[in-house]
């Protein structure tokens, strides 16, 4: 009797383990079935290419958020980081057009990435070394970034950039946009680094238990800071892709990415409490989110209603995370 009992519960644990890890994929599948039934356009390659294109920007920023979440923190500045770095890039590119010898587009991209990384470093230093709550530090930088973006662009959109940067958003490899391949490549790399290297191990350790990490000789401040630095870099990378894909830039770029990223991360299995979850899950979580809004757009749901729904999805995701963590106690 107790034999079958244990076996039955072992099976259940396995199932719940499986559904936890692949919840995002299961959710995407279920949603796809629903939208396929309601919209004839949904299951076309054209539409899916669109979904993947949109995912490629959000999910790269979301990867950054996932890493910060793994260290047990939270980055509110990611979205505005995307905005500021892409605006900065646009301004520099425009001056390229005027005097082509000064700003090579590739140099501009490097500057964008450096700037994004620097913003991450500010977050990291303020949080890890100066001891500010991450919430406050990153909220501050969120405002700084947004202010700077407005300042340098005068809040007006900028369009058309040199062809040399089209690669990041508009060129294709066969039927596949390069940016989607880049995204997948980045995720595979991040998944590998996070599980198989000292860097990744220590990031998990810091988030899983700060004190235990300290008493194991891990430099807690350094890895907390590094989480933000990597996130800053990825946000600006997302900015590069976005700029190239849209071939135009506005201060609203990346708006709300930090929350989209949280939804993506949590649905993908990363925990708000830190130290738990797979980075690769965030990719599926992001696809889930984009698919959901793609499908709703096709059902002609009012965009404002979509915003409200997004708020609910965020709350639901956080609730889910709290529930998952409570159950283990």
């Amino acid at each position, binding site marked *: 009797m107790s034999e079958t009992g244990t076996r039955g519960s072992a099976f259940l644990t396995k199932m719940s383990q499986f559904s936890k890890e692949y919840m995002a994929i299961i959710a995407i599948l279920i949603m796809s079935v629903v939208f396929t039934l309601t919209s004839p356009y949904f299951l076309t390659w054209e539409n899916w290419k669109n979904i993947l294109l949109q995912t490629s920007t959000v999910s790269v920023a979301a990867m950054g958020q996932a890493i910060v979440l793994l260290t047990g923190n939270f980055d509110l500045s990611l979205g505005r980081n995307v905005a500021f770095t892409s605006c900065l890039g646009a301004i520099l590119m425009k001056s390229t057009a005027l005097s082509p010898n000064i700003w090579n587009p590739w140099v501009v991209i490097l500057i964008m990435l450096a700037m994004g990384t620097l913003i991450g470093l500010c977050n990291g230093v303020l949080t890890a070394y100066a001891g500010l709550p991450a919430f406050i530090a990153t909220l501050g930088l969120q405002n700084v970034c947004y202010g700077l973006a407005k300042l340098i662009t005068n809040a007006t959109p900028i369009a058309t950039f040199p062809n040399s940067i089209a690669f990041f958003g508009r060129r294709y490899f066969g039927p596949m946009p390069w940016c989607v391949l880049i995204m997948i490549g980045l995720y595979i790399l991040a998944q590998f680094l996070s599980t198989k290297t000292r860097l990744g191990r220590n990031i998990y350790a810091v988030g899983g238990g700060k004190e235990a990490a300290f008493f194991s000789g891990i*430099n807690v401040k350094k890895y907390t800071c590094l989480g933000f630095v990597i996130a800053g870099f990825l946000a600006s990378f997302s900015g590069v892709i976005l700029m190239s894909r849209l071939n135009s830039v506005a201060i609203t770029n990346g708006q709300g990415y930090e929350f989209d990223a949280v939804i993506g991360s949590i649905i993908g299995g990363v925990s708000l409490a830190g130290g738990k979850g797979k980075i690769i899950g965030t990719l599926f979580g992001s696809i889930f989110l984009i698919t959901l809004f793609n499908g709703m757009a096709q059902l002609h749901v009012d965009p404002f209603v979509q915003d409200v729904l997004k708020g609910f999805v965020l709350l639901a995701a956080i609730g889910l995370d709290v529930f998952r963590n409570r159950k283990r106690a």
Partner: protein
Amino acid sequence: MDKDYILEIEGLSKGFPGVQALDKVSFNVERGTIHALVGENGAGKSTLIKILAGIYRADAGNVTLNGQAIAFKTPHEARVAGISVVHQEMKLAEPLSVAENLFVGGILTGRGNLVDWKEMRRRAKEIIDNLGVEIDVRAPVDSLTVAKKQIVEVCRAVNMNCKLMIMDEPSATLTDRELEILFGIAKKLRGEGITIIYISHRLDEIFNLADNVTVLRDGLMVNTVPVRDVTKRRLISMMVGRELGLEYPKEAAQIGDVLLEVKNLVRNGVLHDISFNVRQGEVLGISGLVGSGRTELARAILGIDKIDSGEVYVRGKKKLYRSFREAIKDGLGLIPEDRKTQGLVQIFSVKRNICMVSLDKIIKKGIVSARLEQQYGEEYAKKLRIMTPSMNTQVQYLSGGNQQKVVVTKWMMQNSEILFMDEPTRGIDVGAKTEIYHLINDLVKQGKTVIMISSEMPEILGMCDRIVILHEGKMVGELMRDEATQERIMEKCV
């Protein structure tokens, strides 16, 4: 039949994935007695307690309290029924004050439904004073030492006015004097008709305190007997199912050069002018009451806390570690006192925790080797006989003693030359204790040094070559193994 039982347990079973924690356990507890529950790590003691307290549900079996069948669904129900638990893993609201913690769930209100802080503090102080300890009732709990937190836990249970108090290893962190106090309280409560279920791995306590004892082994009940009818030897063999060797298997090692020397160490307000040294092959004990600066001394030497003046020499060279990391790299190590937060990442697997300090050993060409991690995990888990369903089990699901073994294992793998152990055998069963003592023997035989901080006097006396005694941050004495006795140490402590 003729006895008055407050609690009757019959056929109680509980399984977790991969383990049967309790298997048809039956025994009764007499009203107004102190009933001890003993068994090896992972025997199922805490699980049983958690079922009584409404935290877990049993798979099968009946529990009767005061003649009524009970199956609590929440801890609250258990509390209302008069069962109060001091848990092995503390469950205090850390940022709140001591007084608030004593009244959790029943905040006192005065006029206008406002919190009556004055009355609450007064009552809290009364309870604490009653125990003869000094704790500021306004202090936030997280500012207290582990031992004081434990006392707060006991106070809280007292305050809940219970009929059946369960103490799950309350003594694991207490020093002798605090223990005396705890025993005093337990006996006083028994005099007032309260029944106590008492779990401990320190068997002397059982003989000192308990009326009856129930032995569990691997989830099965071995026996329930009156304490006066058994000997310690007999009890141990019931627990572990075999005869154990010497309790303190001390083997003298070749004493070599001075490895660590501390000169006039000062940390303002905490440590005052402390000087001592340790040699290769030596086990140095650091004894003293809670709050005497034992842990602080280790922290200062290891670069965790700042030193205000004085010097530390390692292998004859002057050192000033700016971080604990630096100290680790230089061959020092520390088994921290609080396994729950300092020792382990609760949500990580057993093997991942084991390899956390010595990550280098499983990294080949920059890549973490899953194979090596598994191999090292298994090797060390076997050495210390860690009971776990698998290497991938999260440590939070291990029994308390097995968690402690994982912490010890981490540092065995690191193989530090100078290893500080802060309460290394806390919550570990007799068998595993002996294994740790053997490990200490092995370390010093390899020419290493062990510095052991322990509240358990017999352990210090049994395993150390030399004992340094601290009192209020000052070094008040140093005794060699052959001149040290419990009385001589206590004399200097007070």
